[in-house]
């Protein structure tokens, strides 16, 4: 007989059931090539005897085993659905750069509250913002929007961190020296002008873009053979480079 049954979430069970039924349809479609009078499964219903449990976070089910009485009944019905219906009832798949809630470093409680509001990704959150809904109000002030926005920005930044490819020394038309930092994803957020510190002295950032940053050098920087350059591109991207002259 079967061993101890595993607890499952309804979503997982239905997913597995759909996979099984898809395979059935594939097998029957192949069979239909040589045997024209083959069947297609139209509708499937399963009445399950289960024991539900709630761990304070999620409801899971265990299918009743031999000898177990008093189980609850769950009926799952899967019908045929047209492509049009799928489009009408499904969410548009997330964009390439969409971030799932699981990827964001948020506490469990906030994630749970967001999921209850139907927010599973950053795109979902944007949709709510676009409709002028105050997430703080709808969550009874339990979701700190500023903290949430910062965590999202941090996660996004972590996915495209700054990469310094080269540092060179040049002179401007006024013969004053400056450093050129080249790379990728450098100053990507126009709201945050980069801050540069050379040998522990603040330096003026002459220009900045995602690929290039120019920093003015003065005598105060004590630029010598070994130098330390710390560049803060935004609150989530700080780079420290040792520059040899």
């Amino acid at each position: 007989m079967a061993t101890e049954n595993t607890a499952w979430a309804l979503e997982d069970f239905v997913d597995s059931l759909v996979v099984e039924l898809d395979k059935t349809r594939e097998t029957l479609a192949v069979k239909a090539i040589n045997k024209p009078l083959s069947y297609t499964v139209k509708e499937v219903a399963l009445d399950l005897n289960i024991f539900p449990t709630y761990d304070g976070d999620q409801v899971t089910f265990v299918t009743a085993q031999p000898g177990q009485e008093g189980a609850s009944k769950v009926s799952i019905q899967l019908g045929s659905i047209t492509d049009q219906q799928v489009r009408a009832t499904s969410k548009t798949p997330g964009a390439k750069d969409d971030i799932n809630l699981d990827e964001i470093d948020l506490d469990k409680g906030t994630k749970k509250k967001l999921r209850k509001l139907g927010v599973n990704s950053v795109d979902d959150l944007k949709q709510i913002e676009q409709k002028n809904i105050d997430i703080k109000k709808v969550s009874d002030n339990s979701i700190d929007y500023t903290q949430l926005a910062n965590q999202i920005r941090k996660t996004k930044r972590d996915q495209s961190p700054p990469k310094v490819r080269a540092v060179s020394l040049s002179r401007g038309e006024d013969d004053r020296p400056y450093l050129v930092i080249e790379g990728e994803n450098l100053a990507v957020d126009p709201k945050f002008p980069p801050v540069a510190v050379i040998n522990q002295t603040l330096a003026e950032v002459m220009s900045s873009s995602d690929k290039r940053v120019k920093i003015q050098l003065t005598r105060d920087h004590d630029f010598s053979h070994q130098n330390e350059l710390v560049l803060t591109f935004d609150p989530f991207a700080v780079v420290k480079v040792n520059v040899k002259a």
Partner: protein
Amino acid sequence: MIDEAFMPFREIVERMLAFENEFVDEEAGVHTYVYECEIESPVELDVARDEEGTLHIGSTPPLYYERTSFLPSFHRLRFTAEINRGDDGD
């Protein structure tokens, strides 16, 4: 993994549909076939999770018909199948 007495859920559906559905009487010149069937059956289930966390649904028709002190839990499977008529509407 799924208990060896059970088979993947898809197989139970496939096997239930693997019957001769065409009846030909050459003498009378009558050709009959089952164009739709609805099957309802008690089934036993074994739901197991593999190492990757994927859920597998094992199923079997009732294994024992004698009443014993331990009765298996019979779940109920119902499905409708119709003849695959193909694109030409045959």
